[in-house]
């Protein structure tokens, strides 16, 4: 005969419908034969029913329309968050390569931005363009004697700037 203690340990699973058919059958058989366990089973059922009665919620207090409004609020961030796990890179060599590329991009982007900003200002201001040309010439000639000339050009009044 199956031990009462072992059978009683299955009462909760039995009542929740979480017991496999064979075990369930064993519990049924035991309950039919053992009056003590039957009494304990009834008490257990009453206990769980009392507890469960207080765990039943009221009607839901919100509709799907309300949820939909909140869904649209979080959309842009959710897209980014959802994209990040796709950047999984397998293997150390590809990882290293991607890291190098990211570092290059991180370092290169500000430099590119600075360069394009300078080019933009030079295109708008003829004096700056002239200064840049002179600078390039002196740099090419590697002649430090003309540094004073550069300073003179840089300090010129706007009206006297060469074009």
């Amino acid at each position, binding site marked *: 005969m199956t031990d009462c203690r072992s059978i*009683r340990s299955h009462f909760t699973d039995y009542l929740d419908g979480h017991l496999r058919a064979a075990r369930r059958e064993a519990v049924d058989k035991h309950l039919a034969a053992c009056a003590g366990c039957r009494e304990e089973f009834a*008490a257990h059922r009453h*206990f769980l029913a*009392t507890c469960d009665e207080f765990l039943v919620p*009221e009607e839901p*207090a*919100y509709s799907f329309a309300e949820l*939909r409004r*909140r869904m649209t609020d979080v959309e842009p961030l*959710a897209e980014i968050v959802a994209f990040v796990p796709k950047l999984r890179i397998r293997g150390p060599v590809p990882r290293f390569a991607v890291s190098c590329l990211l570092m290059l991009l991180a370092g290169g982007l500000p430099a590119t931005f600075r360069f394009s900003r300078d080019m933009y200002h030079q295109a708008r201001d003829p004096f700056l363009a002239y200064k840049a040309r002179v600078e390039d010439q002196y740099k090419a000639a590697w002649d430090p004697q003309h540094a004073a000339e550069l300073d003179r050009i840089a300090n010129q009044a706007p009206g006297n700037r060469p074009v």
Partner: protein
Amino acid sequence: MADEAAVADIALMARVRLGDERAFEELHRRYQRRVLAFFYGMAGDGHAANDLCQETFLRVWKVRRRYRATGSFPGYLFGIARLIWLERCREWRKALRLGQATSFDDAWATLSDPGAHPDDRAARSETATEIRRALESLPEEQRIVFVMRTIRGLSLEDIAAALDCPINTVRSRKILAVKKLRHALAHLVPGPVGARY
């Protein structure tokens, strides 16, 4: 029948992954009450339960692209619900630590809807309060298992998936939770013999 429902859930979730709001609405309709029951069981407050339930579905929508149909959908959904609950508990503890609240009830009031009804709690019957107190005295994981077992259609496998632990662990947590509750509530719901399981 249950298998068909499980397949349908997974098919719906596959559509949700592609951004189909109608499929999401259908999933929401199917599971809203069950998720609400879970949070009501954990928090014991209708307002809190509704708020956390919305939060759970919102999270499912946010991370929908990461969904992989490797297990049951209820296991996945209640796993998210459990995480939301644990996150909220951490916020409560923080509020308590910072002195913004002196009890969990206060902490909840600080963090949730300011229009929550304290009278609701006062009106709750004495038995309900006793049961709630006994439930709150359980360790978090045992309480989650005890509450999840009351949710219709949630198998032990689903609970194990939601808790990310073996089925036998779920079973033992459940037995322990029931044992402790029966001991704590012996005066309310007397049994013929002492709880021996």
